[in-house]
């Protein structure tokens, strides 16, 4: 063995190199406050390892990014831990960098002859922030997409070169495939290469100048890097790793939002917490001062930090630097705090966060369904989901007259009173029972807001049905079951099947003397009047699509149509949109626990 190592040393001189690296004198001895550089190197090592493995599973394109990250997060063995470590170690790196910078400032380690190394360090800080920024977009979820749009918008504000810069960054005039390929090239290629180069330079210069031991330590015996400082560094790195791993396990890993969608508002858009101060800062700059707020002042602040070695040469320079540093830190902490407080007390933002979380959950649920993520991607999957799209279409196109459980489908209650029935549970037994209730039919829940509140149906329910005797009431209940069964609602399928016998009786009773629906309505081969909705297939998908298409057709309301738009005939909604809202009302959507 030793022969082999001798041979290796002869050919490479590795022992000298190792000796140089390990047996470094530390004036004043090893100290805990020297650990920051090593923990940062360790953090970078973690990011390289986890990053390269993530790279092996990631696909940088607008139809593959969210999808591949979903796969890493939810399907790959240990994927969530891997991504979680990468995600939280990135944040730990920012914290460690800040601590390192503070320690360097307090110790005055930025002063001559270490100016260049200080600038290398600031360069590393810039690169790490760049890595965070580019990394935030890569999952291509709503959160990263909208937050990054703000960042590239700010880039476009740069005088003269801004628009070109934005176009180069985005890879075109709009976000798309090339935005991801470019961000990924930066994130996994250019920036890490810069980090490696700067770390090498940083460590080289550090070794050249040694640690900046405080004066009162000058008389203490010098320590050795190995093993004195390495032990402390090792312990510190272990603590960092344990903390990050703890956070990963505690939180369940990094979050993945719903797939990015440029056509849907995302009101919960916020940058990562360490950029929040900049976000908050931007709110204070009125029209015309964006560039000053977003670029000039942050740039000056960074420049001021970079100028510290020069300022430090003055007699009171170090104190001035400490003052600047403290003021900047206090400002950053305060802005972050204000941003958090403002968001926390803003009900709209809190609601937006809940909505975003629900969308993220839904996307994951669909992706985990047997049909999985289609080739067209996660966004196409969400766009074809009645549960997601139904309420939106309802709120936009139906809720100006109808309600859904009293609201507009999305949860807000319009000021105006409804002028059409509440469609929650339309077609179900409960909905029909309500319609046939003498009080409820003329309430706003059903016909109260419409011209039908004085129509034949309302009259029949309030007068005719009110006179039924007990036996006839039993019959009516059977008719309700029979008509509701026409809807073929998936969430009623079990009861419909179990009570097939009663439903069969109900079908016969529809034209019984006391109830006699078919006096007006068509049912099966019993033909009723025109302009009265047919009961054959009432509430079924086909029936509902039909009434949406043309409510003024004779088999629906015909000439008695009370203001319902002809959604299909007039092309107000597309076939796909009508299908989505109908499926949503019929609760015909995928759900992991069967249905509801």
């Amino acid at each position, binding site marked *: 063995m030793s022969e082999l190592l001798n041979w290796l040393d002869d050919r490479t001189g590795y022992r000298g190199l190792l000796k140089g690296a390990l047996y470094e004198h530390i004036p004043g001895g090893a100290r805990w406050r020297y650990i920051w550089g090593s923990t940062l190197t360790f953090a970078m090592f973690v990011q390289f390892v986890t990053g390269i493995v993530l790279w092996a599973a990631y696909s940088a394109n607008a139809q593959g990014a969210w999808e591949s990250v979903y796969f890493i997060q939810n399907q790959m063995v240990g994927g969530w831990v891997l991504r979680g470590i990468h995600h939280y170690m990135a944040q730990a790196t920012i914290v460690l960098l800040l601590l390192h910078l503070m320690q360097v400032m307090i110790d005055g380690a930025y002063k001559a002859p270490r100016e260049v190394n200080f600038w290398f360090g600031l360069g590393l800080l810039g690169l790490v922030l760049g890595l965070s920024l580019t990394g935030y977009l890569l999952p291509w979820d709503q959160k990263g997409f909208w937050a990054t749009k703000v960042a590239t918008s700010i880039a476009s504000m740069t005088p003269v070169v801004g628009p*070109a810069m934005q*176009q*180069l960054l985005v890879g075109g*005039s709009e976000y798309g495939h*090339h935005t991801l390929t470019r961000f990924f090239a930066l994130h996994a290629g250019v920036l890490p290469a810069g980090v490696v180069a700067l770390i090498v330079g940083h460590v080289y210069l550090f070794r050249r100048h040694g640690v900046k031991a405080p004066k009162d330590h000058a008389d203490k015996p010098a320590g050795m890097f190995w093993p004195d400082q390495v032990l402390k560094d090792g312990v510190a790195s272990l603590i960092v790793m344990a903390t990050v791993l703890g956070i990963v396990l505690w939180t369940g890993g990094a979050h993945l939002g719903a797939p990015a969608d440029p056509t*849907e508002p995302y009101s919960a858009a916020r940058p990562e917490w360490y950029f929040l101060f900049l976000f908050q800062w931007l709110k204070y700059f*009125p029209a015309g001062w*964006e560039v000053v707020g977003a670029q000039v002042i942050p740039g000056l602040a960074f420049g001021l930090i970079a100028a510290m070695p020069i300022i430090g040469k003055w007699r009171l320079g170090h104190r001035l630097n400490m003052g600047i540093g403290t003021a900047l830190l206090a400002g950053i902490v305060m802005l972050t705090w204000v941003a958090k407080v403002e968001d926390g007390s803003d009900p709209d933002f809190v609601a937006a966060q809940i909505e975003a979380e629900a969308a993220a959950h839904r996307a994951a649920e669909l992706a985990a369904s047997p049909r999985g993520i289609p080739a067209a991607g996660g966004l196409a999957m969400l766009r074809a989901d009645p549960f997601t799209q139904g309420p939106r279409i309802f709120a936009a196109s139906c809720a100006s007259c109808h309600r859904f459980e009293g609201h507009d489908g999305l949860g807000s209650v319009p000021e105006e009173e409804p002028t059409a029935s509440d469609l929650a549970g339309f077609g179900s037994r409960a909905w029909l029972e309500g319609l046939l209730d003498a009080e409820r039919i003329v309430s706003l829940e059903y016909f109260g807001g419409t011209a039908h509140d004085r129509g034949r149906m309302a009259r029949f329910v309030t007068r005719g049905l009110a006179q039924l005797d007990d036996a006839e009431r039993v019959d009516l209940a059977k008719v309700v079951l029979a008509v509701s069964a026409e809807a073929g609602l998936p969430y009623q399928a079990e009861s419909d099947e179990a009570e097939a016998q009663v439903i069969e009786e109900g079908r016969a009773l529809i034209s019984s003397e006391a109830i006699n629906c078919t006096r007006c309505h068509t049912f099966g081969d019993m033909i009723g009047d025109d302009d009265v909705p047919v009961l054959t297939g009432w509430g079924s998908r086909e029936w509902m699509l039909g009434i949406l298409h043309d409510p003024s057709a004779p088999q629906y309301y015909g000439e008695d149509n009370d203001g319902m738009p002809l959604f299909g005939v007039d092309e107000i909604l597309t076939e796909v949109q009508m299908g989505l809202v109908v499926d949503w009302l019929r609760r015909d959507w995928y759900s992991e626990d069967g249905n509801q």
Partner: protein
Amino acid sequence: MVMGAVASAVPLAAGATALLDPLRRHTGASDMVLVTRLSAVPTDGAPQKFTVTADRTDAWATYADTPIGAVYLRRTGDDVVALNTVCPHAGCFVGLAPDRSRFACPCHKSSFDLDGVVNDPASPSPRDMDVLETEVRNGDEVWVRFQHFLPGREDKTPV
């Protein structure tokens, strides 16, 4: 030395040329897009969001009839005003305030009235929401020239 520099210039120039390719791809004037029917726009003047669907080429892929963005449409009589949903401040998606009385950007709190005009002196947006050219064709087709403008500046410069 010179030869080395010349040799190195080749990959650098090739790389730079390809990297600068997006600058060449100016979308220029965008075509008018059919957004919806006039009858779908509320008659009470309340703005409503419509998804804009059109063919779009994104790098190597061409998508037929795909959602490319959104506009708020507002109707006054037979006239329709279209507002781009992208905030002229920093590019977020401007939403309607919960009471639907104004537009509010969820990011930096820019505020606009229902005509898209900045209505709060503290609003950071440098200009009003971007009004898009609209045209009603064949009686009821609402066509919009869907385009984006550079954020964070007072003038409306197409991207």
